[in-house]
C-alpha cells in the first residue's frame, strides 16, 4: 500500500506550509483533535491530505492528555472553536497502563475492572461531547498488546490482555452506535497491517510521548481522511475499468478469447482475485463500467463466453469498448449514467491512458495499476475511494438499476484541445529504414500485429532481409519514446516501388500508440518517399481479416480515393503533386 506518493515527511511539512499561505476558495473544515499523545506528526499528514482532497482545514489541537477536561467543560476552548469534526486520539498504553504493562493483578478477574473503567470513560466523553456539540466524532479503538505479560500462556486462556482489548473494542462499536454520528477509527487493524515494529516508535514514545512512527502517523491520517471524506459525502459511485491487462491478462484482440489470462493458476489467478474485489464493490452498490480500446465484439465474447470470468455483461451498467479516446468515453459514460465525472474512478494498466485521462478530465480519480500485478487486489481498500459509513440492502441492487437506464442516450462529446495533452507527453518519433539490427523485430511484429494492420501480410526474417536489400522496396520502421519510456519499434511500413506507382505493401502499428496522430505522420513519410522517387501515384490496400476492422476506414480518412471495393478488400489510390508538409507540432522531436 503506497500512501501519499511516498513523499518524505520533510517535504510534506514544506507542502503544508505552502498550502497554508495560499488563499483558497475551497470549503473550510473545522477539526478539533483531542489527544493523550504528541500528535504533531499526525497533524502534518492530516492537514496535507485534507488540503489535497480540496478542503481548507482549520485545526484546533487540544492540550496533551486533557481529553476529559476539554470534552466535559461547556466553556472549554474546544466548544468555543465550534468544530465540525472532533477526533479523539487515545493511545491505549497511556490511557490504561495497567492493561498493557502491568496486567498480572487483573488476570484472576478477567480484567473486568479495567474493562468497565475504560467503557465508562468512553461513554462519558462521547455523551459529554454530545451535550455541547453536534460535531461528528471520530474515536480510535485500542491497539493490541504485542508484549503479553503472560507470554504464550496469554493464548491458552480467556483471561489474557488481548481478550480484554478485544472486548473493549467490540463494546466501543455499541457505544458509538448509541450516540449519533460517532465513527470508530480502527487502529487495531491498521497497526496489524503494518506490524508492531513498523507502526510504533518506542524511542519517540519514551522521549516525546509520541507512540507512532511516521508510518503509523501517516496510516492513521490516511484512515482519518477516508472517514472525513465519507462524512462529507465525498464518495465515488462508479468504477470504470480498462479490459486488456486489467480485467484479464493479455490483449484479447491479439491472442484470442481462449488465450487470455484468467484462471485459478498464475498469472490468471491475479486477475481472478482482482475481479472478485470488483465484484465485492458491485455488491456494495458501486456501478461498474468498461472503457477500453478493443473491438466491442471481443469484449462481449469474453464477458459472455469465457468460463473463468467472474464479471459478466450484466454487472456493467455501461460498456464502451471502441477505439475512441478514453476521456471521450468517460464523458459518454457519465452522460449515460447521469452521474458527475467527479464520482468516477478510472482504472487502467497503461501509464499513457492514465495520464491522458488525468490531463483531460482532472475531475476523474485515476488508479494506475502497479507494474507488480500481485499488488492489484489491495488497491481499492487502500485507496478508500469507495469507503462509505453504511451498507444497505439497496446497495446490492444499485448496479442493475443503473444498467436499465442507459441504452437511451449515447452521444459522444468531443474534445477540442487534445494537442496540448499530446505535447505534454514529450513524444520523440523516429522513422528510419530497417537495418540488420531491426530486421528480426520487424519480422516478429509482422507475425504478431493483428488489429492496426492494413494488409496483415506475415513475413519471415529472410523475406524482410530481401526487401531491405532490394532497390525496389523501402522498409520503414517507426520508433517512439515518450516521457514514460522507450517503446522501441512500434510500426512498420513497406513500400513497393517496382512499378510506375508506389504500392503500400504493408502498414501496421502497435495498438498502444494509435490515436496520437502518429499514424498520419508515418503515412505522410511514405508518401514523401514516393514523391522523392519521382512517382505521382500511391496505391494502397485494406485486406479485411477478423481482427482489423479498426482500420477499415483508415485510408479513406487520410484522403485516399477508393478504386475498387469487395468484401475481402478495398483498393485505394492517392495522387501526390508535392511533398506533403507534416504537422509535427505535437511532438518533441521527429527524426526522419
Amino acid at each position, binding site marked *: 500500500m503506497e500512501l501519499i506518493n511516498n513523499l518524505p*515527511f*520533510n517535504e510534506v511539512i514544506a507542502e503544508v506550509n505552502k498550502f497554508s499561505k495560499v488563499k483558497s476558495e475551497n470549503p473550510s473544515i473545522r477539526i478539533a483533535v483531542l489527544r493523550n499523545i504528541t500528535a504533531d506528526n499526525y497533524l502534518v499528514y492530516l492537514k496535507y491530505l485534507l488540503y489535497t482532497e480540496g478542503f481548507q482545514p482549520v485545526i484546533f489541537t487540544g492540550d496533551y492528555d486533557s481529553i476529559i477536561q476539554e470534552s466535559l467543560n461547556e466553556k472549554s476552548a474546544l466548544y468555543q472553536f465550534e468544530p465540525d469534526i472532533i477526533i479523539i486520539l487515545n493511545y491505549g498504553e497511556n490511557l490504561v497502563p495497567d492493561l498493557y504493562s502491568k496486567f498480572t493483578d487483573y488476570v484472576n478477574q478477567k480484567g473486568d475492572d479495567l474493562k468497565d473503567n475504560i467503557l465508562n470513560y468512553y461513554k462519558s466523553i462521547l455523551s459529554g461531547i454530545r451535550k455541547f456539540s453536534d460535531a461528528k466524532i471520530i474515536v480510535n479503538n485500542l491497539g493490541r498488546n504485542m508484549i503479553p505479560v503472560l507470554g504464550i500462556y496469554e493464548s491458552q486462556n480467556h483471561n489474557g490482555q488481548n481478550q480484554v482489548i478485544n472486548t473493549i473494542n467490540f463494546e466501543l462499536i455499541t457505544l458509538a452506535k448509541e450516540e449519533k454520528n460517532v465513527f470508530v477509527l480502527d487502529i487495531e487493524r491498521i497497526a496489524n497491517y503494518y506490524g508492531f515494529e513498523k507502526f510504533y516508535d518506542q524511542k519517540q514514545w*519514551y*522521549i*516525546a510521548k509520541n507512540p507512532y512512527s*511516521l508510518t503509523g502517523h501517516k496510516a492513521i491520517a490516511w484512515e482519518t481522511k477516508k472517514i472525513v471524506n465519507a462524512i462529507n459525502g465525498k464518495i465515488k459511485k462508479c468504477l470504470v475499468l480498462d479490459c486488456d491487462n486489467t480485467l484479464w491478462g493479455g490483449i484479447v484482440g491479439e491472442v484470442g478469447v481462449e488465450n487470455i489470462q484468467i484462471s485459478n493458476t498464475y498469472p490468471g489467478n491475479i486477475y481472478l482475485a482482482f475481479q472478485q474485489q470488483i465484484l465485492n464493490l458491485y455488491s456494495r452498490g458501486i456501478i461498474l463500467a468498461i472503457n477500453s480500446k478493443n473491438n466491442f465484439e471481443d469484449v462481449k465474447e469474453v464477458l459472455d463466453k469465457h468460463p473463468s470470468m467472474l464479471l459478466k455483461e450484466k454487472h456493467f451498467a455501461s460498456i464502451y469498448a471502441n477505439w475512441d479516446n478514453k476521456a471521450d468515453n468517460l464523458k459518454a459514460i457519465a452522460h449515460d449514467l447521469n452521474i458527475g465525472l467527479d464520482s468516477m474512478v478510472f482504472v487502467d494498466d497503461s501509464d499513457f491512458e492514465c495520464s491522458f485521462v488525468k490531463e483531460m478530465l482532472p475531475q476523474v480519480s485515476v488508479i494506475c495499476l502497479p507494474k507488480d500485478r500481485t499488488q492489484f487486489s489491495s488497491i481499492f481498500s487502500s485507496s478508500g475511494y469507495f469507503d462509505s459509513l453504511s451498507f444497505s440492502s439497496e446497495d446490492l441492487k444499485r448496479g442493475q438499476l443503473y444498467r436499465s437506464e442507459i441504452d437511451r442516450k449515447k452521444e459522444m462529446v468531443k474534445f477540442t484541445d487534445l494537442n496540448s495533452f499530446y505535447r505534454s507527453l514529450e513524444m520523440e518519433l523516429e522513422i528510419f529504414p530497417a537495418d540488420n539490427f531491426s530486421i528480426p523485430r520487424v519480422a516478429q511484429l509482422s507475425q504478431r500485429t493483428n488489429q492496426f494492420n492494413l494488409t496483415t501480410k506475415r513475413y519471415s526474417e529472410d523475406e524482410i532481409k530481401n526487401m531491405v536489400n532490394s532497390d525496389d522496396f523501402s522498409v520503414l520502421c517507426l520508433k517512439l519514446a515518450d516521457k514514460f519510456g522507450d517503446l522501441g519499434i512500434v510500426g512498420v511500413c513497406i513500400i513497393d516501388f517496382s512499378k510506375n506507382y508506389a504500392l503500400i505493401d504493408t502498414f501496421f502499428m502497435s495498438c498502444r500508440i494509435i490515436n496520437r496522430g502518429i499514424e498520419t505522420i508515418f503515412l505522410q513519410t511514405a508518401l514523401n518517399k514516393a514523391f522523392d522517387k519521382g512517382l505521382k501515384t500511391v496505391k494502397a490496400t485494406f485486406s479485411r481479416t477478423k481482427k482489423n476492422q479498426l482500420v477499415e476506414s483508415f485510408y479513406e480518412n487520410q484522403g485516399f480515393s477508393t478504386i475498387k471495393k469487395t468484401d475481402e478488400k478495398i483498393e485505394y489510390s492517392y495522387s501526390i503533386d508535392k511533398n506533403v508538409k507534416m504537422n509535427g507540432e505535437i511532438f518533441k522531436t521527429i527524426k526522419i
Partner: protein
Amino acid sequence: MEEKLRNIIGNVFEIDPDQVNEVTSQDTLANWDSIHHLNLIVSLEESYNVNFTDEETVQLTNYKVIKSILQEKGAFLT
C-alpha cells in the same frame, strides 16, 4: 554544500535553507522547541534512512552535531 540537510532543516523551521549554516542551533532559532525538534528528528531518520539512539536524539540540537552524527552513521551528505 549539504544542500539536502539544509533543506530539511529549512523546511522544519520554516526558514530559507540559505540561512542554515554551521552555527545554526537551538540557540539561534527561536522556534526550535520540542515539537519542531521532534519533526526534525523523524525527518532526518526518514530522509537519511538512519536510526538515532535515544541519547543522540536529545543531543542533536545544533548543525555541527547533526552533521557529525549523520556522518558517523555513514549517511551520504550532499
